[in-house]
């Protein structure tokens, strides 16, 4: 197992990414300190998902450098750091032809873990997300949205990576399941001490998870800070406008009064 804390900071320096002439990420410099939960907040198209994919090495940056634990991410566009980063996407991104169990075990199989070791690790993860017997034998199509996201989380945690990248992980869930899973995710992340970067457009979710929130628009950072900083000391009109565009959260009301 790799040392978790020191080597897992993520640093973007002057990073630019352009898609067909549209600037998705614009000379962005940011440090996601290791061992904390960071939220990338912004409306869709602001470049936040692109940042995750740059960190994963799925996209080469058009300018600047992405470093993970001090090491530059392979700019060939091929993930060079697989195994050190877990990735969860909105709809789960599960393979429909594999059972939940096989979805989770895939990364370990690729590394030729033995069946016993895989079973033991999946047992731990199932307890972590609160799965009973049977669920893992199902195919993704047979699971509920919440169950699918838990499987996806198990898959991301399979190799116990120091870094976890979550792209709108709760985005497609209905409100009740969402609130439930939010709580569960927080309980899982806090003791693990992983570097978590969570992308969302939901202020409530940002407030709930984020030790630091990075609010973005047009590929640039508008403001970084705690939720309280954003509410009390907005860096611009945009921050206030963005925060008030969604129904005020209880946390917000509390902070403002």
């Amino acid at each position: 197992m790799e040392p978790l804390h020191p080597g897992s900071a993520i640093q973007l320096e002057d990073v630019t990414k352009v898609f067909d002439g549209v600037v998705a990420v614009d000379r962005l410099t940011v440090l996601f300190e290791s061992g904390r939960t960071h939220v990338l907040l912004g409306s869709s198209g602001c470049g936040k998902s692109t940042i995750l994919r740059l960190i994963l090495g799925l996209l080469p940056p058009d300018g600047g450098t992405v470093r993970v634990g001090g090491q530059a991410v392979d700019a060939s566009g091929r993930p060079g750091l697989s195994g050190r980063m877990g990735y969860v996407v909105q709809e789960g991104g599960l393979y429909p032809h594999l059972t939940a169990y096989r979805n989770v075990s895939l990364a370990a199989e690729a590394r030729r873990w033995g069946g016993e070791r895989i079973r033991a690790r999946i047992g731990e993860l199932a307890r972590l997300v609160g799965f009973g017997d049977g669920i893992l034998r199902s195919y993704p199509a047979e699971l509920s949205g919440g169950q699918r996201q838990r499987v996806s989380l198990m898959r991301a945690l399979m190799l116990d990576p120091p870094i976890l990248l979550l792209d709108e992980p709760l985005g497609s869930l209905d409100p009740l399941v969402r609130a439930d899973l939010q709580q569960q995710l927080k309980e899982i992340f806090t003791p693990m001490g992983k570097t978590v970067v969570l992308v969302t457009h939901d202020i409530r979710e940002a407030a709930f998870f984020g030790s630091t929130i990075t609010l973005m628009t047009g590929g640039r950072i508008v403001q970084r800070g705690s939720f309280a900083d954003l509410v009390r000391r907005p860096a611009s009109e945009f921050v206030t406008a963005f925060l008030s565009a969604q129904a005020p959260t209880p946390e917000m009301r509390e902070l403002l009064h």
Partner: protein
Amino acid sequence: MRTTPPHVSTPGTRRSSGRAQAITALAAVILPLAWGQAACTEARPTVRVGSKTFTESYILGEIVAEVIERTGEARVERKLGLGDTGIAYRAVAHGDIDLYPEYTGTLSQAILKDPSARTVAEIRRELAGTGLTLGSPVGFNNTYALAVRQEMAKRLRLSSISDLTRHPELTAAFSSGFTDREDGWPGLRRHYGLDLADVRVMEHALTYEALAQGEVDVIDIYSTDGKLERLDLAILDDDRQFFPAYHAVLLVREDFISRFPRSWRALEGQLAGGIDDRQMSRLNALADLDGQGIAQVAATFLGSDGPDDLRERRLVRDVLDLTVDHIYLVLVSLGAAVLLGVPLGILAARHEGLGQAELVAVGILQTIPSLALLCFMIPLFGIGKLPALVALSLYALLPIVRNTYTGLIGIDRQLLEIAGVLGLSRWQRLTRIELPLSSLHIMAGIKTSAVWTVGTATLAAFIGGGGYGDLIVRGLALDDLSLILSGAVPAALMALVIHGLFELVDRVVIPKGLRKTLSTSL
């Protein structure tokens, strides 16, 4: 019922280097499989007798086969019903058969392409150096002629082709060979200055019916046609001598004559000048109109007893043998097409530019008429199973390549990215993610190809590849519906069975989760 003589189509041998490469690659896959069959041929000297696919040619071929068999000099393998002139000629030139009945007119016009060589002696001279030669003329001249209804001939006072110039309102139905050939309608039209109101192209067997029904007024016929004696037709005199002569002769490999001198002497003794127009016409009628088997007709001519087993018993045995043949053709060619098509599909999906070029190439392959594709195979692989397998595999390629390609490029990009994040190697990604995810598409492509191949495999008979096509080709030549059906019905049944089997294979090959997704998303 086609007493068609010399029907010619001479598809070129144009080959792009790309296709040549594809063929070489395919051969590498198929050759080892086809060897199994080839190895079965035993050491005893064998003579291969060919014929083309019309009654007269079958009858002559069968007579030749029986005459050789009687000498006991060699075992005879009958390769009767080999496509058209192009196929039969290539087969004898290539040594896949030793001899087959041909016509002087066809030899000079279509094979030597030298209309000045008319007589047997002239043609023999031109063949010198090719390893081929001619026997003595059999006697009859099966040339083209035009026929009208007797009743109309009287009413319009038609007795010669020249008389037609007075009646431009008449309509005609001609067989496709006749309409295309310089020594057919185009030349005839110029020679006589003819003009007809409407000229339709029809399958020869159907033109008689069209004439009898009064749908058309003029048809092309052959001077040894079995129907001539029994239908009320008036044959128009070729008063300005346009049609070349089509004297029947045996086109034979010289090495056959030196290896089997007794057989050759027997053939010359039995056949030279042995059959005149009337007699050939009668023999054709026995097969075409009275439904006698070819072997029976040949026996009648040779003055011997007919084949001892009943036609039905022979047919059942034929159908069983041909079923094995057909299954072999379908499975081997489909197997080769899968082994080649899936990797080609993967390649196409990996490289965008190459992929498009490849799909176009495979698509073009598909547009080559199947018979022409079979013809291309002869100079490369001779006749028999091997060229049929290669051609069938090439034909089966398109749905497999295209569906593999479509399946692969249709996979959600995100799922592929995740495979990378999970650390799967390229091979693991292909085998564990991409191919299973496209399995629905790929299997659908293979299924299409399989059913399709069962159908196209019937064409293998044209180049001596065997299979149900044998019965269909023979039945078409003899206008024997039951014979056609005895090939066509099992082929259709086989298509259904194969389709059914693939439904079962789907259950094994397509991952359960995908079938679930499908059923819930439908």
